[in-house]
């Protein structure tokens, strides 16, 4: 599948933003957030900024962005519509929580309840994003039970790295939060590793023979394409660029998004002041870069069944 940059940026950035909202929604009711308006401002600015950049980026993928509002109507059947509804709904409680925290220094009481609600909606939004892919039977690498937990754990990972960075820059690094982020980093890449190994051990159930219904006549293989030039389907579903480097790229993703953030986190635990802040920001940036590469691979390694009509043997 063609990895459209707008979609990669969307799921990575908004995943991190919703991940931050999930952590804020857990920490606020527990009374673990500082009653400090400025800190609240920067934490929510980063979280909602990432969410908003991601959502705006996703509209670049559309043929008619000006009609995007229509996507709120089909929540009964469409995961994409559900995602849009929950994405926008999340802003409401997050906004009320922000008013309480930023203007009244109060991340508690009713505002903490709003934080919890925003966190729940954020979980729902990320889950819907994952289900857009996981519900497609046409792509076996996506139609997989591990896709939903992977999206959620990556959101928790980048969200925890984001919140830790805000602490380190505007207050002081919190080792307990950094440790949670480190655990999230480990779980995210462990889960992804299991997913990758599973893909390598499986093949698709559909073949050129089932796609043409000609199995009874012998082996089926493509002789001629319908046209001499590439068409929309081949460009969109037949992406092949750098697929041969997939295994190396997986390793780079794990180093960039897994090993490097862990090293930065540990070094920031051992340092203080400006250095700790720089290391925390580096941990966040490398985590985001690794996640972006992981999303690129999620598309580039995905094979679509329509390619059975364009020369693929199984999908």
């Amino acid at each position, binding site marked *: 599948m063609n990895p459209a940059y707008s979609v990669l940026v969307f799921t990575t950035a908004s995943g991190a933003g919703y991940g931050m909202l999930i952590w804020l929604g857990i920490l606020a009711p527990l009374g673990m957030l500082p009653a400090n308006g400025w800190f609240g401002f920067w934490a929510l600015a980063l979280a909602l900024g990432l969410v908003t950049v991601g959502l705006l980026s996703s509209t670049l993928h559309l043929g008619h962005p000006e009609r995007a509002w229509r996507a709120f109507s089909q929540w009964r059947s469409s995961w994409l519509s559900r995602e849009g509804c929950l994405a926008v709904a999340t802003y409401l409680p997050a906004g009320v929580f922000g008013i309480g925290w930023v203007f009244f220094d109060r991340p508690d009481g009713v505002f903490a309840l709003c934080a919890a609600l925003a966190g729940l909606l954020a979980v729902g939004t990320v889950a819907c994003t994952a289900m857009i892919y996981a519900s497609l039977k046409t792509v076996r690498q996506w139609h997989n039970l591990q896709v939903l937990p992977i999206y959620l754990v990556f959101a928790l990972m980048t969200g925890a790295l984001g919140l830790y960075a805000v602490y380190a820059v505007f207050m002081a690094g919190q080792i307990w939060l950094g440790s949670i982020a480190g655990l999230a980093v480990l779980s995210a890449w462990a889960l992804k590793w299991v997913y990758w190994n599973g893909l390598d051990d499986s093949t698709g159930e559909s073949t050129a023979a089932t796609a043409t219904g000609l199995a009874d006549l012998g082996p089926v*293989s493509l002789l001629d394409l319908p046209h001499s030039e590439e068409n929309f389907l081949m460009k969109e579903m037949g992406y092949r660029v750098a697929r041969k480097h997939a295994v190396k790229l997986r390793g780079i993703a794990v180093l960039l998004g897994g090993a490097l953030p862990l090293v930065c986190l540990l070094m920031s635990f051992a340092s203080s002041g400006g250095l700790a802040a720089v290391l925390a920001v580096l941990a966040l940036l490398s985590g985001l870069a690794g996640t972006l590469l992981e999303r690129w691979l999620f598309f580039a390694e995905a094979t679509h069944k329509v390619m059975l009509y364009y020369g693929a043997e199984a999908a």
Partner: protein
Amino acid sequence: MTSLPKTPPAKRLGLVIDLDTCVGCHACVVNCKEWNTGGYPAPLSDINPYGDKQSGAWLNRVHSFEVGRGADSQTVHFPKSCLHCEDAACVTVCPTGASYKREADGIVLVDEERCIGCGLCAWACPYGAREMDPLGGVMKKCTLCIDRIYNENIPEAQRQPACVNTCPARARHFGNFADPDSEVSKLVADRGGVDLMPEMGYRPTNKYLPPRPKTKEHTAAAGRAALAAADPDGGFLGWLDRLLSD
């Protein structure tokens, strides 16, 4: 709207495609483009249509497959357009209600005014029935020529999809699959019509008739045997053969 009809459509209109008689001439492809670039989904745009690297939206394409191996192989031309599935995933994934299945006749259509061009329906279709219009930014697909089949301004004999009307080999048939006595239902019953990718569970309406088994005299082996050197069987040539063989 993007939920599928709750009760099965009263009519199930679709195509039967006969892979035995299709000669791979692409006339259906061209006539589909010609009619539809001026019809319901108009225009079907092209990028650089007369130059290098042209691309554009087409609703019907003919692929060619080699089936079998060696002397027993055969070429099967394979026309493919929307199959108007009963469980159409392209409809349920649509976030805007642009993609829908008609309750009256089961035809799957795109309301282009509502389409945001997200492309998700094309991702959901295993058959490659949907193509993004490169200039319009909206999804295009086979309409089963709804602007022909119900069109009272054209002669009754022509109220068929353009691809069916134009096929010189009569390899495409249009009809109502809900009626067991229709021509298409009978063809499917008589010739063992099949679903494409039945494992997907989308229950396509269109059916494909597999090529008939080859008779012995039409195989490549029979042709080669006919060309092999043979000795004359008696008569004058037999006498000459015996004379020259000595």
